[in-house]
């Protein structure tokens, strides 16, 4: 397996401009090929590396595909019962107010079984960061319909598409919690193109910086693909996400400095 262009003189240690961060444990990620989780994991760890916060961060893992996040993130992590990560993070942050605390949750965890915990933690204005990965499906268990599934979207429990009349409307939980007074910063990002990845990293950095000032919940939603659950190739699923998910879940900041951004701006260009 010889690479044809293997010999170039610039392949030297001092010329490295980008490499996988050491805060990610050196083992293969358990996610499917092309899954957005890997990118979010890496951006999160790079943010913590830049802030020199490896020793001062406690993460709370969810139930879902990223239940094994503690296997990959080289920081202190706890596993919460399904949906209860915000409740656990509340306790951690109150006991160790000087640590950075974050929860990392999917849509089945945060928007379905954990709705009560999420809404009440946000309403109380706890000072931790919630990272919400939204792929509109229960990815781990085989692609069942989730509260965030789009109208008409096919899943294994809605094979003819989600019918709003019988299956209810999708839940825009990010917009819902943005209206709560305890929430300081709410944003929605994506990780399928380099530009979006950079923006996501900036949003994560901002969220952790706000945590230092004890101003309230910071909430970063990442709209991600689930190519296995959607039954597509990774590149197809990114395209499908752009065409179908983004009109319903527009990217951009929703609440900055405790003030809701006008709908027009929030719905604007990503």
């Amino acid at each position, binding site marked *: *397996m010889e*690479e*044809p*262009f*293997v010999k*170039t*003189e*610039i*392949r*030297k240690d*001092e*010329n*490295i*401009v*980008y*490499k*996988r*961060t050491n805060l*990610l444990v050196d083992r*293969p*990620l358990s*996610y*499917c*090929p*092309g*899954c*957005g*989780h*890997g*990118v979010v994991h*890496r951006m999160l760890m790079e943010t913590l590396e830049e802030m020199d916060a490896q020793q001062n961060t406690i993460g709370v893992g969810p139930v879902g595909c990223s239940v094994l996040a503690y296997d990959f993130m080289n920081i202190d992590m706890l596993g919460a019962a399904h949906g209860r990560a915000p409740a656990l993070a509340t306790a951690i942050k109150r006991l160790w107010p000087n640590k950075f605390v974050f929860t990392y949750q999917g849509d089945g965890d945060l928007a379905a079984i954990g709705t009560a915990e999420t809404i009440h933690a946000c309403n109380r204005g706890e000072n931790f960061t919630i990272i919400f990965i939204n792929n509109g499906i229960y990815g781990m268990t085989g692609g069942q319909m989730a509260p965030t599934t789009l109208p008409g979207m096919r899943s294994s429990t809605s094979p003819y598409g989600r019918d709003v009349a019988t299956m209810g409307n999708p839940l825009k939980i990010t917009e819902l919690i943005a209206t709560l007074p305890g929430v300081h910063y709410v944003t929605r990002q994506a*990780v*399928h*193109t*380099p530009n979006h*990845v*950079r923006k996501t990293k900036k949003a994560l950095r901002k969220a952790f910086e706000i945590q230092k000032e004890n101003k309230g919940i910071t909430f970063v939603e990442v709209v991600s693909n689930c*190519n296995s659950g959607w039954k597509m*190739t*990774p*590149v197809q699923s*990114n395209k499908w996400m752009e065409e179908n998910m983004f009109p319903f879940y527009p990217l951009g900041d929703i609440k900055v400095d405790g003030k809701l951004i006008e709908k027009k701006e929030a719905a604007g260009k990503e």
Partner: protein
Amino acid sequence: MAKIKGDILVNIERCKGCEVCIAACPSATIAMAKEVNGKGYHFAMKVNNDCTGCMNCALVCPDGVITVFRGKVE
């Protein structure tokens, strides 16, 4: 005149062959190999010398298998 050139190094045993990097590369430097790695995935591979070291491929790679180099060549 010195030119800035880039280079990538793919950890082929960790690559899962999702092809997201190919869509992100502006200089068409990456393509999938015909061979497979130990897990049975076709891996990403450098196929020309046009790399500028823009890091796009490394940023979107879900598994972080790409290391990017950038330096001056005479």
